[in-house]
């Protein structure tokens, strides 16, 4: 059974803070993804990674960076959080072209 875990379910940060969102998967998946979900906009891809130390920009990478130092872990970094980054952040992983499995999400509020 695939398990994708995210470090926090809820997070409150202040404008300008550096924010780290962590995601860990336990199924040796090579692909990992970060999305944000906003009302009326659905899920939008921020960044994804096909392998350790590899990253690709998604549809909305501005204001974000990522790190993948180990296969099981994919971190999303907000260098200087802004209020428009208040959102639900979802991490997913997949094996090859198979189904993506999602974590429970982190609801981030930036004040």
């Amino acid at each position, binding site marked *: 059974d695939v398990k*994708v875990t995210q470090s926090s379910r809820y997070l409150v940060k202040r404008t300008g803070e550096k924010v780290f969102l962590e995601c860990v998967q336990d199924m040796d998946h090579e692909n990992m993804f970060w999305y944000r979900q906003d009302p009326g906009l*659905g899920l939008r*891809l921020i960044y994804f990674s096909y392998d350790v130390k590899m990253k690709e920009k998604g549809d909305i990478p501005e204001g974000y960076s990522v790190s993948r130092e180990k296969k099981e872990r994919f971190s999303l970094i907000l260098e200087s959080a802004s209020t428009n980054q208040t959102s639900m952040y979802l991490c997913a992983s997949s094996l090859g072209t198979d*189904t*993506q499995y999602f974590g*429970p*999400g982190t609801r981030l509020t930036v004040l």
Partner: protein
Amino acid sequence: DQQVKQNSPSLSVQEGRISILNCDYTNSMFDYFLWYKKYPAEGPTFLISISSIKDKNEDGRFTVFLNKSAKHLSLHIVPSQPGDSAVYFCAASVGLSNFGNEKLTFGTGTRLTIIP
């Protein structure tokens, strides 16, 4: 530029009746389509998928129909049950032979409410 569109933000259906959720896409390169279901405070879970070489795929109460000429797919749930109340997202990806085919483009979601 929304390449995958779900034009109905919400839908209410009586328990036991059929629920039909619709999805339209604009990118003719998409050839694999999926439906995900999301409960509040949980991540989306995979429901059913269809390849562009098919026009129908069935799994229990769930059937997905694909009309390539209309660039339209739909999810049918029969019979609808209260546990089906959730937000449903359709998603699409581009050709299995292309690098980056793992990337999914999601629609905006439809909130389905099943009325007991």
